[in-house]
């Protein structure tokens, strides 16, 4: 058709398009989907409301803009105050004294305390109390504008105590420490002891590692301190909430990726495509398992606190004080030290001296050779 035949085109298009039947199932599925999404879809009403009233639309837009600006500006203004609160909380968690079973943080009116993984609203009085899964931040409901915080802190607590006990009580103290751990819901992770005898003039020493639920750690420290004479008590707590949350987030993200890849795999028809997706899935699964192992370890470390107790029998002096030296003894030692220093000095200067001697010898040889050559030339000329 060199000229365009409109009627023919209409017929041809109709025939091309009407070649297949339209099924009703597709319409039913559209209706079902519309019913499912329709119950919660308020947007048409809101849009109709906005369209009806132009002023209202402008007002709503202005209000929305104000909310966005406030949402951005308030955290910026409070960022400095928030940082100081973080420091306070970190200090509170970082130094745990044996007697402190509870740490209390007071929020200043109008400020927001922001910590790792949790937020405490204005006028809040937050209480950090030990729980089975770590320290939980609880905010009283009566606080105005205070948002409920249910994020739990993950704190890893460890401690070391050096105990000195009477000679006859060494074994009984070890048993007592084991009892403390089991009573507090924990267990003995390891124990090591050396029994001394009077015949060999040795003293009994030993160490025991106790693990108890984190909430009973302070109580255990207190009990152990009074089981003998505590010569040193060191406890520390590390906040690993950030690490914990980060691991969880990474695991979640990888799980989402895995689900996506599984969906892709169901739609992949070619063998190459399936193998490629399978490789990705294997890699993701491996990463998930690694992160899960780290998370489990962290979970275990924060669930149980570790206390290492070093035991020593009374009278066992590890460090002997130095005896004051007498005059002759001192002179003899000084003499020996001087001799050794002299030998050291000789050895130290031997290297540079040897170098200087070799250099001089080389210069002498060169000078002699030059002198002889000069003399020979003079003799030849004359």
């Amino acid at each position, binding site marked *: 058709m060199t000229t365009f035949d409109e009627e023919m*085109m209409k017929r*041809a298009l109709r025939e091309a398009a009407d070649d297949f039947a339209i099924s009703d199932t597709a319409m039913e599925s*559209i209706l079902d989907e519309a019913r499912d999404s329709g119950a919660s879809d308020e947007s048409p009403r809101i849009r109709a409301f906005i369209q009806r009233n132009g002023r209202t639309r402008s007002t709503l837009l202005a209000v929305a803009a104000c909310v966005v600006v406030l949402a951005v500006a308030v955290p910026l203004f409070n960022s400095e105050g928030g940082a100081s609160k973080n420091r306070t909380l970190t200090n509170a968690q970082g130094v745990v004294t044996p007697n402190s079973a509870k740490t209390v943080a007071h929020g200043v009116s109008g400020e927001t305390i922001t910590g790792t993984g949790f937020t405490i609203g204005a006028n809040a009085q937050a209480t950090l109390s030990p729980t089975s899964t770590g320290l939980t931040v609880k905010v009283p409901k009566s606080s105005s504008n205070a948002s409920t915080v249910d994020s739990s802190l993950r704190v890893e607590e460890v401690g070391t105590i050096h105990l000195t006990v009477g000679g006859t009580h060494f074994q009984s103290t070890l048993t007592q420490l084991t009892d403390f751990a089991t009573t507090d819901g924990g267990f003995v992770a390891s124990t090591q002891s050396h029994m001394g005898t009077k015949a060999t003039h040795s003293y009994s020493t030993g160490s025991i590692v106790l693990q108890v639920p984190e909430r009973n750690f302070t109580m255990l420290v207190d009990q152990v301190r009074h089981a003998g004479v505590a010569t040193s008590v060191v406890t520390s707590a590390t906040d690993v909430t950030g690490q914990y949350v980060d691991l969880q987030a990474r695991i979640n993200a990888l799980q989402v990726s895995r689900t996506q890849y599984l969906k892709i795999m169901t739609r992949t028809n070619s063998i190459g495509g399936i193998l490629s997706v399978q490789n990705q899935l294997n890699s993701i699964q491996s990463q998930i398992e690694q992160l899960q192992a780290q998370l489990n370890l962290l979970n275990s470390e924060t669930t149980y606190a570790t206390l290492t107790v070093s035991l020593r029998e009374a009278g066992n002096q590890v460090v002997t004080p130095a005896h004051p030296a007498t005059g002759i003894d001192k002179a003899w030692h000084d003499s020996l030290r001087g001799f050794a220093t002299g030998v050291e000095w000789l050895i130290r200067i031997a290297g540079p001296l040897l170098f200087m001697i070799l250099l001089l010898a080389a210069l002498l040889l060169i000078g002699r050779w030059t002198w002889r050559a000069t003399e020979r030339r003079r003799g030849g000329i004359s």
Partner: protein
Amino acid sequence: MSDAVDVDELQTWLEDGYASSVRTAYLILGNRPDAEDAVQESFLRAWKFRDSLATGSSFKPWLYRVVVNTCNSKLRKEIPHRNRRRPDDDLDDVAMIEDPIGRVTLSYDVMTALRDLPAHLRIVVVLRYYADLSEHDIAIVIGRQPGTVKSRLNEARRRLALHPALQSEAPSSINDRKERQS
């Protein structure tokens, strides 16, 4: 307006316009599965934004506008990134109809010629000669001036008139079919 009423309204829309929308989308996109996807998406979108249909305005161009926009979106974003289905994919459906050879030949030729047109020309041809919309309505559907529609139609006609598939096959096939029909 309750949700039940809304869904009834959607059902009316579907009964009135689903089949023609799928066929229009089929001509624009060139294959049936994509056309059905596009129309399903279009109806849900149209129903969601049903309040944007101004009172008193014509429903048909508005619905076609949503369908054409969805088809355009598919042509731009989705279809170029995969192997394009050929019209042969739908031959199973056509094989059951009366006089399959003549109709398949003509359908194939028309689809070939349409596929070779640029999308913006193909759309106006389909809307004009299949959906039977006026130039004014096509202008509403594609969101352009009527003058633009006119020039696009002219350009499309010129290209179709010169297309080898329609040039060689069309007169004979039409005559043959006319004879067969009589």
